[in-house]
Protein backbone atom coordinates (compact mmCIF):
# COMPACT_ATOMS: atom_id res chain seq x y z
CA UNK A 1 0.00 0.00 0.00
CA UNK A 2 0.94 3.56 -0.43
CA UNK A 3 3.02 5.11 2.36
CA UNK A 4 1.07 8.37 2.53
CA UNK A 5 2.94 9.74 5.53
CA UNK A 6 6.30 9.16 3.91
CA UNK A 7 5.13 10.89 0.74
CA UNK A 8 3.86 13.84 2.78
CA UNK A 9 7.21 14.15 4.58
CA UNK A 10 9.10 14.00 1.30
CA UNK A 11 6.73 16.48 -0.29
CA UNK A 12 7.38 19.02 2.46
CA UNK A 13 11.11 18.42 2.41
CA UNK A 14 11.45 18.72 -1.36
CA UNK A 15 9.09 21.72 -1.56
CA UNK A 16 11.07 23.52 1.12
CA UNK A 17 14.40 22.90 -0.53
CA UNK A 18 13.14 23.82 -4.01
CA UNK A 19 11.66 27.08 -2.76
CA UNK A 20 14.64 27.90 -0.55
CA UNK A 21 17.15 27.32 -3.33
CA UNK A 22 15.07 29.39 -5.71
CA UNK A 23 14.86 26.51 -8.20
CA UNK A 24 11.15 27.13 -8.35
CA UNK A 25 8.90 30.00 -7.32
CA UNK A 26 5.75 27.90 -6.85
CA UNK A 27 4.95 24.42 -5.62
CA UNK A 28 1.54 23.09 -6.64
CA UNK A 29 0.37 20.48 -4.13
CA UNK A 30 -2.19 20.08 -1.35
CA UNK A 31 -2.86 21.70 2.02
CA UNK A 32 -5.17 20.62 4.80
CA UNK A 33 -8.84 21.55 4.52
CA UNK A 34 -11.55 21.73 7.14
CA UNK A 35 -10.96 18.07 7.92
CA UNK A 36 -8.69 15.26 6.81
CA UNK A 37 -11.08 14.10 4.12
CA UNK A 38 -11.12 17.48 2.42
CA UNK A 39 -7.60 18.55 1.44
CA UNK A 40 -7.40 21.65 -0.75
CA UNK A 41 -5.21 22.31 -3.80
CA UNK A 42 -2.54 24.68 -2.62
CA UNK A 43 0.22 26.83 -4.05
CA UNK A 44 3.26 27.10 -1.79
CA UNK A 45 5.17 30.29 -2.57
CA UNK A 46 7.73 30.43 0.22
CA UNK A 47 9.74 27.86 2.16
CA UNK A 48 7.57 28.49 5.23
CA UNK A 49 4.47 27.44 3.26
CA UNK A 50 5.92 23.95 2.82
CA UNK A 51 4.90 23.00 6.35
CA UNK A 52 1.26 23.37 5.34
CA UNK A 53 1.50 20.72 2.63
CA UNK A 54 -0.28 17.42 3.14
CA UNK A 55 -0.73 14.23 1.22
CA UNK A 56 -3.29 11.57 1.99
CA UNK A 57 -5.68 9.24 0.17
CA UNK A 58 -8.17 12.06 -0.40
CA UNK A 59 -5.72 14.21 -2.41
CA UNK A 60 -7.47 13.22 -5.62
CA UNK A 61 -7.35 16.59 -7.38
CA UNK A 62 -5.27 16.83 -10.49
CA UNK A 63 -2.76 19.60 -9.80
CA UNK A 64 -1.79 19.76 -13.50
CA UNK A 65 -5.06 21.62 -13.87
CA UNK A 66 -3.46 24.72 -12.38
CA UNK A 67 -0.34 24.75 -14.60
CA UNK A 68 -1.85 26.74 -17.46
CA UNK A 69 -2.66 29.61 -15.08
CA UNK A 70 0.92 30.76 -15.07
CA UNK A 71 2.86 32.42 -17.89
CA UNK A 72 5.57 30.40 -19.58
CA UNK A 73 8.88 30.88 -17.84
CA UNK A 74 7.38 30.56 -14.35
CA UNK A 75 9.42 27.95 -12.52
CA UNK A 76 6.93 25.52 -11.02
CA UNK A 77 7.16 22.29 -9.06
CA UNK A 78 4.03 20.22 -9.42
CA UNK A 79 3.00 17.19 -7.38
CA UNK A 80 1.47 14.55 -9.66
CA UNK A 81 0.02 11.10 -9.27
CA UNK A 82 -0.11 8.67 -12.20
CA UNK A 83 -2.92 10.17 -14.26
CA UNK A 84 -1.91 13.71 -13.28
CA UNK A 85 1.55 13.10 -14.71
CA UNK A 86 -0.07 12.12 -18.01
CA UNK A 87 -1.79 15.53 -18.00
CA UNK A 88 1.61 17.20 -17.61
CA UNK A 89 2.97 15.22 -20.55
CA UNK A 90 -0.08 16.04 -22.67
CA UNK A 91 0.19 19.75 -21.83
CA UNK A 92 3.85 19.68 -22.82
CA UNK A 93 2.95 17.92 -26.09
CA UNK A 94 0.37 20.61 -26.78
CA UNK A 95 2.85 23.39 -26.11
CA UNK A 96 0.90 24.83 -23.20
CA UNK A 97 3.62 24.11 -20.67
CA UNK A 98 7.39 23.91 -21.10
CA UNK A 99 9.26 20.92 -19.74
CA UNK A 100 12.16 23.15 -18.69
CA UNK A 101 9.92 25.24 -16.48
CA UNK A 102 8.84 22.25 -14.42
CA UNK A 103 10.12 20.19 -11.56
CA UNK A 104 7.82 17.17 -11.55
CA UNK A 105 7.27 15.66 -8.11
CA UNK A 106 6.02 12.17 -8.85
CA UNK A 107 3.73 10.39 -6.42
CA UNK A 108 3.16 6.66 -6.89
CA UNK A 109 -0.27 6.21 -5.34
CA UNK A 110 -2.63 3.29 -5.05
CA UNK A 111 -5.67 3.30 -2.79
CA UNK A 112 -6.78 6.89 -3.40
CA UNK A 113 -10.33 7.43 -2.18
CA UNK A 114 -13.34 9.31 -3.45
CA UNK A 115 -14.12 11.74 -0.65
CA UNK A 116 -17.86 11.66 -1.29
CA UNK A 117 -18.29 7.89 -1.32
CA UNK A 118 -15.16 6.66 0.46
CA UNK A 119 -14.67 4.19 -2.40
CA UNK A 120 -11.18 3.37 -3.57
CA UNK A 121 -10.60 5.01 -6.91
CA UNK A 122 -9.56 2.30 -9.29
CA UNK A 123 -9.53 1.78 -13.00
CA UNK A 124 -13.29 2.08 -13.05
CA UNK A 125 -13.34 5.83 -12.67
CA UNK A 126 -9.79 6.66 -13.58
CA UNK A 127 -6.94 5.29 -15.62
CA UNK A 128 -4.62 2.48 -14.63
CA UNK A 129 -1.51 4.60 -14.11
CA UNK A 130 -0.42 4.11 -10.51
CA UNK A 131 3.12 5.31 -10.99
CA UNK A 132 3.82 8.67 -12.64
CA UNK A 133 4.86 8.34 -16.28
CA UNK A 134 7.32 11.18 -15.84
CA UNK A 135 9.08 12.67 -12.83
CA UNK A 136 12.15 14.58 -11.69
CA UNK A 137 11.84 13.65 -8.04
CA UNK A 138 9.95 10.61 -6.82
CA UNK A 139 8.25 11.20 -3.46
CA UNK A 140 7.58 7.53 -2.71
CA UNK A 141 8.63 4.09 -3.87
CA UNK A 142 7.20 2.95 -7.16
CA UNK A 143 4.37 0.51 -6.67
CA UNK A 144 4.58 -2.81 -8.44
CA UNK A 145 2.47 -5.91 -8.24
CA UNK A 146 -0.85 -4.11 -7.84
CA UNK A 147 -3.14 -5.76 -10.31
CA UNK A 148 -4.66 -3.02 -12.39
CA UNK A 149 -7.29 -4.03 -14.92
CA UNK A 150 -7.67 -2.36 -18.25
CA UNK A 151 -9.09 1.15 -17.85
CA UNK A 152 -11.59 0.16 -20.52
CA UNK A 153 -13.09 -2.88 -18.76
CA UNK A 154 -15.77 -0.70 -17.23
CA UNK A 155 -17.11 0.05 -20.70
CA UNK A 156 -18.41 -3.49 -21.24
CA UNK A 157 -21.90 -2.69 -20.01
CA UNK A 158 -22.30 0.40 -22.15
CA UNK A 159 -20.81 -1.29 -25.20
CA UNK A 160 -23.24 -4.15 -24.71
CA UNK A 161 -26.21 -1.83 -25.13
CA UNK A 162 -27.76 -1.17 -28.52
CA UNK A 163 -27.77 2.34 -29.94
CA UNK A 164 -31.20 3.24 -28.54
CA UNK A 165 -30.39 2.02 -25.05
CA UNK A 166 -27.12 3.98 -25.04
CA UNK A 167 -28.91 7.10 -26.19
CA UNK A 168 -31.51 6.62 -23.45
CA UNK A 169 -28.73 6.17 -20.88
CA UNK A 170 -26.94 9.38 -21.80
CA UNK A 171 -30.15 11.36 -22.19
CA UNK A 172 -31.13 10.41 -18.66
CA UNK A 173 -27.70 11.28 -17.32
CA UNK A 174 -27.63 14.66 -19.05
CA UNK A 175 -31.06 15.52 -17.68
CA UNK A 176 -29.32 15.70 -14.30
CA UNK A 177 -26.84 18.32 -15.54
CA UNK A 178 -27.18 21.70 -13.80
CA UNK A 179 -24.64 23.38 -16.08
CA UNK A 180 -22.34 24.43 -13.25
CA UNK A 181 -19.39 23.59 -15.53
CA UNK A 182 -17.46 21.98 -12.69
CA UNK A 183 -16.40 19.22 -15.15
CA UNK A 184 -14.67 21.53 -17.59
CA UNK A 185 -13.20 23.62 -14.80
CA UNK A 186 -11.73 20.62 -12.99
CA UNK A 187 -10.25 19.28 -16.23
CA UNK A 188 -6.52 19.89 -16.82
CA UNK A 189 -7.05 19.75 -20.58
CA UNK A 190 -9.95 22.24 -20.67
CA UNK A 191 -7.88 25.37 -20.96
CA UNK A 192 -9.69 27.08 -23.87
CA UNK A 193 -10.18 30.76 -23.18
CA UNK A 194 -12.93 31.47 -23.80
CA UNK A 195 -14.61 28.08 -23.79
CA UNK A 196 -16.99 27.84 -26.75
CA UNK A 197 -19.87 27.68 -24.26
CA UNK A 198 -19.03 31.18 -23.01
CA UNK A 199 -18.96 32.72 -26.48
CA UNK A 200 -21.93 34.93 -27.29
CA UNK A 201 -21.19 35.83 -30.90
CA UNK A 202 -21.96 33.39 -32.26
CA UNK A 203 -23.67 31.53 -29.48
CA UNK A 204 -23.07 27.84 -29.99
CA UNK A 205 -25.58 26.54 -27.47
CA UNK A 206 -28.40 27.71 -25.24
CA UNK A 207 -27.18 29.18 -21.99
CA UNK A 208 -30.23 27.96 -20.11
CA UNK A 209 -30.05 24.34 -19.03
CA UNK A 210 -32.16 22.91 -21.83
CA UNK A 211 -31.63 19.43 -23.18
CA UNK A 212 -30.23 20.60 -26.51
CA UNK A 213 -27.77 23.04 -24.98
CA UNK A 214 -26.60 20.52 -22.43
CA UNK A 215 -26.09 17.90 -25.12
CA UNK A 216 -24.19 20.41 -27.24
CA UNK A 217 -21.94 21.24 -24.30
CA UNK A 218 -21.09 17.72 -23.25
CA UNK A 219 -20.74 16.21 -26.72
CA UNK A 220 -18.49 19.02 -27.88
CA UNK A 221 -16.39 18.68 -24.76
CA UNK A 222 -16.17 14.90 -25.15
CA UNK A 223 -14.98 15.20 -28.73
CA UNK A 224 -12.64 18.07 -28.02
CA UNK A 225 -10.96 15.79 -25.51
CA UNK A 226 -10.56 12.95 -28.00
CA UNK A 227 -6.99 11.73 -27.78
CA UNK A 228 -6.36 14.28 -25.03
CA UNK A 229 -8.27 12.98 -22.01
CA UNK A 230 -5.73 11.44 -19.62
CA UNK A 231 -8.37 9.58 -17.62
CA UNK A 232 -7.87 11.20 -14.21
CA UNK A 233 -11.62 11.09 -13.51
CA UNK A 234 -11.68 14.57 -11.99
CA UNK A 235 -14.65 15.65 -14.16
CA UNK A 236 -16.80 12.93 -12.67
CA UNK A 237 -15.67 13.52 -9.10
CA UNK A 238 -16.24 17.27 -9.54
CA UNK A 239 -19.81 16.75 -10.74
CA UNK A 240 -22.26 17.64 -7.94
CA UNK A 241 -24.90 15.37 -9.47
CA UNK A 242 -22.62 12.43 -10.27
CA UNK A 243 -22.88 12.20 -14.04
CA UNK A 244 -20.45 9.39 -15.03
CA UNK A 245 -18.64 11.53 -17.59
CA UNK A 246 -15.60 9.27 -17.37
CA UNK A 247 -17.48 6.58 -19.30
CA UNK A 248 -17.79 8.71 -22.42
CA UNK A 249 -14.22 9.94 -22.16
CA UNK A 250 -12.96 6.39 -21.79
CA UNK A 251 -14.93 5.25 -24.82
CA UNK A 252 -13.43 7.98 -26.96
CA UNK A 253 -9.97 7.32 -25.50
CA UNK A 254 -10.29 3.65 -26.30
CA UNK A 255 -11.27 4.31 -29.91
CA UNK A 256 -8.35 6.70 -30.27
CA UNK A 257 -5.94 4.19 -28.83
CA UNK A 258 -7.20 1.47 -31.14
CA UNK A 259 -7.10 3.71 -34.22
CA UNK A 260 -3.90 5.63 -33.63
CA UNK A 261 -1.92 3.35 -31.36
CA UNK A 262 -1.26 5.82 -28.60
CA UNK A 263 -2.90 6.81 -25.34
CA UNK A 264 -2.90 10.45 -24.29
CA UNK A 265 -0.02 11.79 -22.24
CA UNK A 266 2.06 8.62 -22.06
CA UNK A 267 5.16 9.78 -23.89
CA UNK A 268 6.63 13.23 -24.11
CA UNK A 269 7.97 12.49 -27.62
CA UNK A 270 4.49 11.76 -29.02
CA UNK A 271 2.49 14.29 -30.94
CA UNK A 272 -1.16 14.66 -29.92
CA UNK A 273 -3.14 12.03 -31.84
CA UNK A 274 -5.50 14.57 -33.37
CA UNK A 275 -2.68 16.88 -34.44
CA UNK A 276 -0.60 14.26 -36.16
CA UNK A 277 -0.80 12.36 -39.42
CA UNK A 278 0.77 9.03 -40.11
CA UNK A 279 0.43 7.08 -43.32
CA UNK A 280 -0.65 4.01 -41.46
CA UNK A 281 -3.38 5.83 -39.48
CA UNK A 282 -6.64 3.96 -39.31
CA UNK A 283 -9.31 4.98 -41.78
CA UNK A 284 -11.85 2.97 -39.84
CA UNK A 285 -13.88 6.07 -39.04
CA UNK A 286 -14.57 6.59 -42.74
CA UNK A 287 -16.01 3.10 -43.18
CA UNK A 288 -19.34 1.52 -42.26
Amino acid at each position, binding site marked *: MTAFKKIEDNLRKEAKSLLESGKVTLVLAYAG*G*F*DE*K*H*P*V*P*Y*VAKAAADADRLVFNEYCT*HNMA*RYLTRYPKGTRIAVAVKGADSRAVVQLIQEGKVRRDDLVILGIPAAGMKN*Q*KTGEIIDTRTTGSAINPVIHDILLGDEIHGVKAGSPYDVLAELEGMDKDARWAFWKK*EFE*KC*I*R*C*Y*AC*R*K*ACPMCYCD*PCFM*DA*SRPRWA*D*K*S*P*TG*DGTLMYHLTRFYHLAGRCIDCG*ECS*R*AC*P*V*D*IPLYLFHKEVAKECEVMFGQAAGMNIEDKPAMANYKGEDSDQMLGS
Partner: protein
Amino acid sequence: MLKKIAIDQFSELVKALLEQGLLYAPVKGTDGVNFRAIQNPADVTLDYYNTVLSPKAVFFPQSEDLIRYRIKKDTPEAQPVPLENRPAVILGVRPCDVRSFEIMDRHFLGAGVIDPYWKSKRDSTTVIGFAFDVNAAADPADFYNTFGYGAADPEGSDVFMIRADGNLLLRGMTDRGEKLLASLGCLQAGDARDEKAFDETVKKGKAVRTRSAEINDKEIAKKLVDIFDNGEFWQKVTMACIACGACTFVCPTCYCFDISDETLFKEGARKRFWDACTFTDFTLEASGHNPRPRIFQRYRQKVCHKYSYHVDKYGCISCVGCGRCIRSCPVNIDIFGIVVEAGKL
Protein backbone atom coordinates in the same frame (compact mmCIF):
# COMPACT_ATOMS: atom_id res chain seq x y z
CA MET B 1 -52.50 20.75 16.51
CA LEU B 2 -50.32 17.65 16.56
CA LYS B 3 -51.04 14.71 14.30
CA LYS B 4 -49.26 11.44 13.69
CA ILE B 5 -48.91 8.54 11.30
CA ALA B 6 -46.88 5.34 11.56
CA ILE B 7 -43.72 5.50 9.46
CA ASP B 8 -44.74 2.33 7.62
CA GLN B 9 -47.92 4.18 6.60
CA PHE B 10 -45.89 7.06 5.19
CA SER B 11 -46.97 6.38 1.60
CA GLU B 12 -50.58 6.99 2.68
CA LEU B 13 -49.57 10.48 3.74
CA VAL B 14 -47.81 11.02 0.42
CA LYS B 15 -50.91 9.83 -1.46
CA ALA B 16 -53.14 12.16 0.53
CA LEU B 17 -50.82 15.10 -0.19
CA LEU B 18 -50.77 14.26 -3.89
CA GLU B 19 -54.54 14.47 -3.97
CA GLN B 20 -54.29 18.10 -2.87
CA GLY B 21 -52.13 19.19 -5.79
CA LEU B 22 -48.45 19.36 -6.65
CA LEU B 23 -46.08 17.65 -4.26
CA TYR B 24 -42.34 18.16 -4.11
CA ALA B 25 -40.46 15.69 -1.97
CA PRO B 26 -37.03 14.03 -1.66
CA VAL B 27 -36.36 11.31 -4.22
CA LYS B 28 -33.26 9.17 -4.44
CA GLY B 29 -31.68 9.08 -7.88
CA THR B 30 -28.24 8.59 -9.36
CA ASP B 31 -27.68 12.25 -8.54
CA GLY B 32 -28.23 11.64 -4.82
CA VAL B 33 -31.40 12.69 -3.02
CA ASN B 34 -33.15 15.74 -4.43
CA PHE B 35 -36.57 17.40 -4.37
CA ARG B 36 -38.72 16.37 -7.30
CA ALA B 37 -42.33 16.76 -8.33
CA ILE B 38 -43.83 13.46 -7.24
CA GLN B 39 -45.85 11.22 -9.53
CA ASN B 40 -45.44 7.90 -7.77
CA PRO B 41 -45.77 7.93 -3.93
CA ALA B 42 -43.26 5.08 -3.63
CA ASP B 43 -40.52 7.36 -4.99
CA VAL B 44 -40.42 9.55 -1.88
CA THR B 45 -37.64 8.78 0.59
CA LEU B 46 -37.12 9.88 4.17
CA ASP B 47 -33.66 8.32 4.20
CA TYR B 48 -31.31 11.21 3.55
CA TYR B 49 -29.13 13.65 5.42
CA ASN B 50 -29.88 16.59 3.18
CA THR B 51 -30.56 17.01 -0.52
CA VAL B 52 -27.66 17.73 -2.90
CA LEU B 53 -29.50 20.64 -4.51
CA SER B 54 -31.34 23.05 -2.26
CA PRO B 55 -35.14 23.31 -2.27
CA LYS B 56 -34.99 26.79 -3.85
CA ALA B 57 -35.81 25.35 -7.28
CA VAL B 58 -39.41 24.80 -6.16
CA PHE B 59 -39.92 28.57 -6.06
CA PHE B 60 -37.06 29.60 -8.32
CA PRO B 61 -36.57 26.92 -10.99
CA GLN B 62 -33.17 26.69 -12.62
CA SER B 63 -34.82 27.75 -15.86
CA GLU B 64 -38.18 29.44 -16.26
CA ASP B 65 -39.94 30.72 -19.39
CA LEU B 66 -41.15 34.30 -18.95
CA ILE B 67 -42.42 34.95 -22.47
CA ARG B 68 -42.95 32.59 -25.38
CA TYR B 69 -42.85 33.98 -28.89
CA ARG B 70 -43.17 33.09 -32.54
CA ILE B 71 -41.38 35.14 -35.15
CA LYS B 72 -43.79 36.10 -37.96
CA LYS B 73 -42.97 37.79 -41.22
CA ASP B 74 -43.59 41.33 -40.00
CA THR B 75 -44.01 41.25 -36.24
CA PRO B 76 -43.26 38.74 -33.58
CA GLU B 77 -46.16 37.26 -31.67
CA ALA B 78 -45.38 37.13 -27.97
CA GLN B 79 -47.33 35.84 -24.99
CA PRO B 80 -46.34 36.15 -21.36
CA VAL B 81 -46.30 32.77 -19.66
CA PRO B 82 -49.07 32.57 -17.05
CA LEU B 83 -47.86 32.47 -13.47
CA GLU B 84 -47.87 29.10 -11.81
CA ASN B 85 -50.08 29.18 -8.73
CA ARG B 86 -51.44 25.69 -8.34
CA PRO B 87 -51.62 24.59 -4.70
CA ALA B 88 -48.43 22.78 -3.86
CA VAL B 89 -46.71 21.17 -0.91
CA ILE B 90 -42.99 20.78 -0.37
CA LEU B 91 -42.26 17.98 2.05
CA GLY B 92 -39.05 17.23 3.90
CA VAL B 93 -37.27 20.60 4.09
CA ARG B 94 -34.54 20.68 6.76
CA PRO B 95 -34.78 23.46 9.36
CA CYS B 96 -31.82 25.47 8.03
CA ASP B 97 -33.27 25.33 4.52
CA VAL B 98 -36.65 26.53 5.75
CA ARG B 99 -34.90 29.68 6.93
CA SER B 100 -33.46 30.17 3.46
CA PHE B 101 -36.98 30.83 2.14
CA GLU B 102 -37.34 33.79 4.52
CA ILE B 103 -33.99 35.17 3.36
CA MET B 104 -35.00 34.80 -0.29
CA ASP B 105 -38.35 36.47 0.48
CA ARG B 106 -36.52 39.61 1.55
CA HIS B 107 -34.98 39.83 -1.89
CA PHE B 108 -37.83 38.63 -4.11
CA LEU B 109 -40.67 40.24 -2.14
CA GLY B 110 -39.16 42.96 0.04
CA ALA B 111 -36.85 44.88 -2.24
CA GLY B 112 -39.48 47.33 -3.42
CA VAL B 113 -40.27 45.36 -6.54
CA ILE B 114 -42.17 42.14 -6.05
CA ASP B 115 -41.01 39.24 -8.18
CA PRO B 116 -44.26 37.68 -9.40
CA TYR B 117 -42.64 34.37 -10.35
CA TRP B 118 -41.28 33.76 -6.87
CA LYS B 119 -44.39 35.15 -5.18
CA SER B 120 -46.96 33.05 -7.02
CA LYS B 121 -45.21 29.81 -6.22
CA ARG B 122 -44.29 30.80 -2.67
CA ASP B 123 -47.87 31.93 -1.90
CA SER B 124 -49.41 28.72 -3.18
CA THR B 125 -46.99 26.34 -1.47
CA THR B 126 -47.22 24.81 1.99
CA VAL B 127 -43.87 23.99 3.57
CA ILE B 128 -43.53 20.81 5.60
CA GLY B 129 -40.22 21.00 7.46
CA PHE B 130 -38.48 17.85 8.64
CA ALA B 131 -36.08 17.60 11.58
CA PHE B 132 -32.59 16.22 11.09
CA ASP B 133 -31.94 13.00 12.98
CA VAL B 134 -31.23 14.50 16.41
CA ASN B 135 -29.44 11.34 17.53
CA ALA B 136 -26.86 11.52 14.75
CA ALA B 137 -23.89 13.83 14.29
CA ALA B 138 -24.18 16.73 11.89
CA ASP B 139 -22.24 16.57 8.63
CA PRO B 140 -18.75 18.05 9.18
CA ALA B 141 -19.38 20.71 6.51
CA ASP B 142 -22.50 22.10 8.20
CA PHE B 143 -22.35 25.28 10.28
CA TYR B 144 -26.00 26.24 10.78
CA ASN B 145 -25.47 26.62 14.56
CA THR B 146 -23.60 29.80 13.65
CA PHE B 147 -26.93 31.39 12.74
CA GLY B 148 -28.66 30.06 15.84
CA TYR B 149 -30.55 27.27 14.10
CA GLY B 150 -31.08 23.89 15.73
CA ALA B 151 -31.38 20.53 14.02
CA ALA B 152 -35.11 20.35 14.82
CA ASP B 153 -36.26 23.98 14.87
CA PRO B 154 -39.88 24.10 13.70
CA GLU B 155 -39.97 27.89 13.13
CA GLY B 156 -40.61 28.97 9.56
CA SER B 157 -42.36 25.76 8.49
CA ASP B 158 -46.12 25.61 7.97
CA VAL B 159 -46.06 22.05 9.28
CA PHE B 160 -43.09 20.57 11.08
CA MET B 161 -42.42 16.85 11.01
CA ILE B 162 -40.23 14.72 13.26
CA ARG B 163 -39.61 11.00 13.62
CA ALA B 164 -40.37 9.43 16.99
CA ASP B 165 -40.69 5.74 17.90
CA GLY B 166 -41.89 4.42 14.57
CA ASN B 167 -44.17 7.40 14.03
CA LEU B 168 -44.00 10.65 12.15
CA LEU B 169 -45.32 13.49 14.28
CA LEU B 170 -46.62 16.56 12.45
CA ARG B 171 -47.35 19.84 14.16
CA GLY B 172 -49.13 22.73 12.51
CA MET B 173 -47.06 25.90 12.87
CA THR B 174 -49.17 28.34 10.81
CA ASP B 175 -52.84 28.67 9.86
CA ARG B 176 -52.01 27.26 6.48
CA GLY B 177 -50.28 24.31 8.09
CA GLU B 178 -53.15 23.69 10.49
CA LYS B 179 -55.56 23.71 7.57
CA LEU B 180 -53.47 21.20 5.66
CA LEU B 181 -53.22 18.86 8.65
CA ALA B 182 -56.97 19.07 9.27
CA SER B 183 -57.63 18.03 5.68
CA LEU B 184 -55.53 14.87 5.80
CA GLY B 185 -57.79 12.00 6.82
CA CYS B 186 -54.95 9.49 7.03
CA LEU B 187 -53.52 11.20 10.14
CA GLN B 188 -54.42 10.38 13.71
CA ALA B 189 -54.58 12.92 16.53
CA GLY B 190 -51.44 13.00 18.68
CA ASP B 191 -51.77 12.50 22.43
CA ALA B 192 -49.93 14.06 25.38
CA ARG B 193 -47.09 11.58 25.01
CA ASP B 194 -46.60 12.61 21.40
CA GLU B 195 -46.63 16.27 22.38
CA LYS B 196 -43.86 15.53 24.85
CA ALA B 197 -41.83 13.55 22.32
CA PHE B 198 -42.16 16.38 19.81
CA ASP B 199 -40.99 19.02 22.28
CA GLU B 200 -38.14 16.85 23.46
CA THR B 201 -36.92 16.33 19.90
CA VAL B 202 -36.94 20.06 19.29
CA LYS B 203 -34.93 20.51 22.47
CA LYS B 204 -32.54 17.72 21.59
CA GLY B 205 -32.05 19.32 18.20
CA LYS B 206 -30.58 22.34 19.95
CA ALA B 207 -27.83 20.10 21.30
CA VAL B 208 -26.75 18.75 17.89
CA ARG B 209 -23.47 20.56 17.27
CA THR B 210 -22.37 21.81 13.88
CA ARG B 211 -19.30 23.95 13.36
CA SER B 212 -20.07 27.34 14.79
CA ALA B 213 -18.55 30.78 15.28
CA GLU B 214 -19.61 34.10 16.74
CA ILE B 215 -20.44 36.06 13.64
CA ASN B 216 -22.16 39.38 14.18
CA ASP B 217 -24.02 40.51 11.05
CA LYS B 218 -23.07 44.16 11.21
CA GLU B 219 -19.48 43.58 12.28
CA ILE B 220 -18.69 41.06 9.56
CA ALA B 221 -20.46 43.27 7.00
CA LYS B 222 -18.17 46.16 7.87
CA LYS B 223 -15.07 43.99 8.19
CA LEU B 224 -15.47 42.57 4.69
CA VAL B 225 -15.75 46.05 3.21
CA ASP B 226 -12.68 47.11 5.18
CA ILE B 227 -10.60 44.23 3.82
CA PHE B 228 -12.00 44.45 0.29
CA ASP B 229 -8.64 45.68 -1.00
CA ASN B 230 -6.61 43.08 0.87
CA GLY B 231 -5.76 41.21 -2.31
CA GLU B 232 -3.23 39.05 -0.53
CA PHE B 233 -5.93 37.63 1.76
CA TRP B 234 -8.47 37.04 -1.00
CA GLN B 235 -5.94 35.43 -3.30
CA LYS B 236 -4.71 33.18 -0.53
CA VAL B 237 -8.14 31.89 0.46
CA THR B 238 -9.34 31.41 -3.11
CA MET B 239 -6.21 30.02 -4.75
CA ALA B 240 -7.82 26.61 -5.23
CA CYS B 241 -11.04 28.00 -6.77
CA ILE B 242 -11.53 26.76 -10.34
CA ALA B 243 -14.40 29.19 -11.05
CA CYS B 244 -17.18 26.72 -11.68
CA GLY B 245 -20.69 27.44 -10.44
CA ALA B 246 -21.30 24.40 -8.27
CA CYS B 247 -21.35 26.31 -4.96
CA THR B 248 -23.87 28.89 -6.12
CA PHE B 249 -26.13 26.39 -7.88
CA VAL B 250 -26.50 24.13 -4.85
CA CYS B 251 -26.90 27.13 -2.51
CA PRO B 252 -30.36 27.77 -1.07
CA THR B 253 -29.84 31.54 -0.95
CA CYS B 254 -28.01 32.34 -4.21
CA TYR B 255 -30.57 34.07 -6.40
CA CYS B 256 -28.62 35.63 -9.27
CA PHE B 257 -30.06 34.87 -12.68
CA ASP B 258 -29.47 35.66 -16.32
CA ILE B 259 -32.16 36.33 -18.93
CA SER B 260 -31.83 35.27 -22.52
CA ASP B 261 -34.02 34.88 -25.60
CA GLU B 262 -33.52 31.39 -26.94
CA THR B 263 -34.92 30.72 -30.37
CA LEU B 264 -35.05 27.57 -32.42
CA PHE B 265 -36.05 28.29 -36.00
CA LYS B 266 -39.05 30.65 -35.63
CA GLU B 267 -40.08 29.88 -32.08
CA GLY B 268 -38.56 30.61 -28.77
CA ALA B 269 -38.81 31.83 -25.23
CA ARG B 270 -37.41 34.55 -23.05
CA LYS B 271 -35.99 32.58 -20.19
CA ARG B 272 -34.47 33.35 -16.87
CA PHE B 273 -32.05 30.85 -15.42
CA TRP B 274 -29.53 30.60 -12.61
CA ASP B 275 -26.26 32.42 -13.10
CA ALA B 276 -23.15 32.29 -10.93
CA CYS B 277 -20.91 35.17 -9.84
CA THR B 278 -17.99 32.77 -10.05
CA PHE B 279 -18.39 32.39 -13.84
CA THR B 280 -15.91 34.27 -16.02
CA ASP B 281 -18.65 35.94 -18.04
CA PHE B 282 -20.87 36.94 -15.11
CA THR B 283 -19.85 40.59 -15.29
CA LEU B 284 -18.56 40.60 -18.84
CA GLU B 285 -19.78 43.81 -20.46
CA ALA B 286 -20.81 44.30 -24.07
CA SER B 287 -17.70 46.44 -24.61
CA GLY B 288 -15.54 43.44 -23.78
CA HIS B 289 -14.51 44.94 -20.46
CA ASN B 290 -14.82 42.66 -17.45
CA PRO B 291 -14.70 44.36 -14.05
CA ARG B 292 -14.00 41.04 -12.32
CA PRO B 293 -11.63 39.19 -14.63
CA ARG B 294 -9.85 37.31 -11.84
CA ILE B 295 -11.12 34.39 -9.84
CA PHE B 296 -10.34 35.92 -6.45
CA GLN B 297 -12.39 38.99 -7.38
CA ARG B 298 -15.38 36.85 -8.22
CA TYR B 299 -15.14 34.67 -5.15
CA ARG B 300 -14.72 37.82 -3.05
CA GLN B 301 -17.96 39.07 -4.57
CA LYS B 302 -19.68 35.86 -3.50
CA VAL B 303 -18.48 36.17 0.09
CA CYS B 304 -19.14 39.92 0.29
CA HIS B 305 -22.59 39.61 -1.23
CA LYS B 306 -23.65 36.99 1.28
CA TYR B 307 -21.98 38.38 4.38
CA SER B 308 -21.80 42.11 3.75
CA TYR B 309 -23.93 43.65 1.01
CA HIS B 310 -26.91 41.48 1.94
CA VAL B 311 -26.68 42.63 5.53
CA ASP B 312 -26.67 46.28 4.41
CA LYS B 313 -29.51 45.85 1.99
CA TYR B 314 -31.79 43.31 3.66
CA GLY B 315 -30.65 43.23 7.27
CA CYS B 316 -29.35 39.68 7.42
CA ILE B 317 -26.58 37.40 6.20
CA SER B 318 -27.67 35.41 3.18
CA CYS B 319 -26.35 32.05 4.29
CA VAL B 320 -27.97 29.39 6.46
CA GLY B 321 -24.95 27.17 7.09
CA CYS B 322 -26.40 24.14 5.27
CA GLY B 323 -22.91 23.14 4.10
CA ARG B 324 -23.95 22.34 0.52
CA CYS B 325 -21.44 24.64 -1.16
CA ILE B 326 -18.67 22.99 0.83
CA ARG B 327 -19.81 19.43 0.14
CA SER B 328 -20.21 20.14 -3.58
CA CYS B 329 -17.02 22.13 -4.10
CA PRO B 330 -14.71 20.14 -6.39
CA VAL B 331 -11.69 21.59 -4.55
CA ASN B 332 -13.04 21.66 -0.99
CA ILE B 333 -13.17 25.41 -0.46
CA ASP B 334 -14.74 26.17 2.91
CA ILE B 335 -16.63 29.46 2.99
CA PHE B 336 -17.14 29.15 6.74
CA GLY B 337 -13.39 29.03 7.33
CA ILE B 338 -12.87 32.01 5.02
CA VAL B 339 -15.44 34.17 6.81
CA VAL B 340 -14.07 33.22 10.23
CA GLU B 341 -10.54 34.05 9.06
CA ALA B 342 -11.72 37.36 7.60
CA GLY B 343 -13.36 38.22 10.90
CA LYS B 344 -10.05 37.89 12.68
CA LEU B 345 -8.16 40.26 10.39
